[in-house]
């Protein structure tokens, strides 16, 4: 515990990251309670400046921007987290199988992984999103993870191969402990630090992809999302070219930038916490 505190105090940026991330998590959890209904248009309040009533002002239809940001947070974080989780699960399972189940499985899985690594993931995600036609958040998370697990699978595989070459695996097998048990007791714990760090990285790319799909307008606007706001701000509403509507343009941008900053800085802290080199120095 003392060490963890030290890791945070050594770099204040890490603290900033955790605070930012927590802020958005709180928004995502309590947002639906604060604003259970979609923001109401108000033709008398188009592009109103920030005020006590409208914290971040209003949009082209007179809807409260803050309310939309809060509602968007839930959708963005939920889908992004789910997508990152799927990515981690697929990548870990494929990597473990390839590294642990012998050369035949390894060869087949790595050919497939190579193919997924070669295909441009954003383009594949977009094509999938368009053809499947999004119906719900879980499908969206699945699409986001479908094209992005390759790197993790490759990394996990090479780590498994290197762990397998260390003799403690041989010793455990030699003691008559079954392979699957060795996998969970000896191999997986050594990978956990990397998997945790990669979860954070995967989170940034699923945020990227999810908001991007809405921004491009390739999926139906069936949810309050920062990408939808950004799409309207840069597109039809003409907010780009009007000084009045600056808040409508800046708010989603700021939300995305702050969320990604929060994730990146937190992952720096997580990295320092789980880094085996630091642990050995303890």
């Amino acid at each position, binding site marked *: 515990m003392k060490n963890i505190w030290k890791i945070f105090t050594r770099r204040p940026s890490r603290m900033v990251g955790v605070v930012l991330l927590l802020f958005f998590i709180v928004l995502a959890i309590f947002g639906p309670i604060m604003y259970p209904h979609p923001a109401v248009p108000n033709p008398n309040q188009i592009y109103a400046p920030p005020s006590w009533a409208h914290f971040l002002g209003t949009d082209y239809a007179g809807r409260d921007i803050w309310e939309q940001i809060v509602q968007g947070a839930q959708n963005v974080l939920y889908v992004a987290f789910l997508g990152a989780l799927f990515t981690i699960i697929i990548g870990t399972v494929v990597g473990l199988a390839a590294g642990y189940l012998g050369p035949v499985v390894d060869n087949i899985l790595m050919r497939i992984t190579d193919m997924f690594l*070669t295909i*441009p993931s*954003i383009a594949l995600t977009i*094509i999938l999103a368009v053809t499947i*036609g999004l119906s719900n958040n879980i499908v969206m998370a699945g699409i986001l993870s479908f094209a992005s697990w390759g790197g993790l699978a490759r990394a996990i595989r090479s780590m498994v191969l290197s762990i397998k070459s260390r003799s403690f695996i041989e010793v455990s097998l030699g003691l008559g402990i079954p392979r699957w048990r060795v996998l969970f007791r000896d191999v997986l714990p050594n990978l956990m630090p990397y998997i945790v760090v990669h979860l954070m990285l995967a989170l940034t790319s699923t945020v990227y992809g999810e908001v991007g799909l809405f921004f491009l307008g390739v999926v139906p606007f069936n949810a309050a999302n920062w990408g939808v706001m*950004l799409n309207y701000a840069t597109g039809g509403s003409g907010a780009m070219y009007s000084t009045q509507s600056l808040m409508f343009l800046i708010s989603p941008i700021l939300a995305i930038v702050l969320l990604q900053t929060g994730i990146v800085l937190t992952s*720096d802290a997580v990295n320092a916490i789980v880094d085996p080199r630091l642990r050995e120095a303890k």
Partner: protein
Amino acid sequence: MNKLIRRVVTSLILIFVVATLTFFLIRLMPGSPYEVLYHQLLMKGMSQQQAADQVRSLLNATPNEPVILQYFQWVVQLFHGSLGNSIAQTGVPVTQLIFNALPWTLVTVTMGLFISFFIGIFLGVISASKRNSWVSGLIDNASSIAHAIPAYVTAVALLYLFNVVWHVFPSSGAYGITVYPGVNLPFILSFMYHMVLPVGTYVLTGLGSWELAMKATTITVTNDDFMMAARLRGLRHSTLMSYLGWNSILPLFTGFMLSLGAMFGGSVFIESTYSFPGIGNLFGAAITSRDYPVMEGCFLLTTTTIIVANVVADLMYSKLDPRIVD
């Protein structure tokens, strides 16, 4: 040489597999391109027979035909170098659209790749040499954040600042309306002027991964025994730096694959935002209009580019690093 042939053959197979998968992916999903056009034509008031004939003549394919037959036709076309015709711009061959768009993207992405690579490794070396100081922390965090911020956000922000607020750079297009494309100075200058914002976006979103990778390899190499040995051998500072530099940069070449993929993918967002007439823009437009043959073509081309670049990077790497004997 043997290796080159093997790589090329496996790459061709890979391209073919990817193309096949996209073909089936798109055809098996509800709302196939032929049905879409077919229904569009019906909506325009054609009879069923008329619509079917129209689809056949435009897309060179028969709707409601078994997918497997469509696939064979498509393969035959592919080997004749045809990717079918666009639906949105009715009748225009996809290959023509792509070849019009490709040069713009190729130039901007390549420039973005190299500039981000050089800035990235420069920052990486600085961060590694000032390890554990606030400078290194700042560079690392800034790079990771720049990398994590989506390209469309960066693009919108740059466009707003440099076009809307400061009126420094143009908002759209690849060259001014007064110049003629070709090898002439006004065109080249105009192109470069229009290129600044897109390339700048590629650089900002791309350099983070190079910085982090370079920092990691530089630190590893600095701690390698041979660097310590080289110092004790009293080698000149410049020699030490070249030892450090080459040994740190070499492993980064393998990262070309992922980063090229990411850049070509990112071009959808960047070119759409800047209305830059490249592949990304074409792809984005094709998506909006559900122009499946164009989507397919862009996707196939992007994948092929990445595979080719990958082979080149691999060959270069095995030439540069003597440890790769294979």
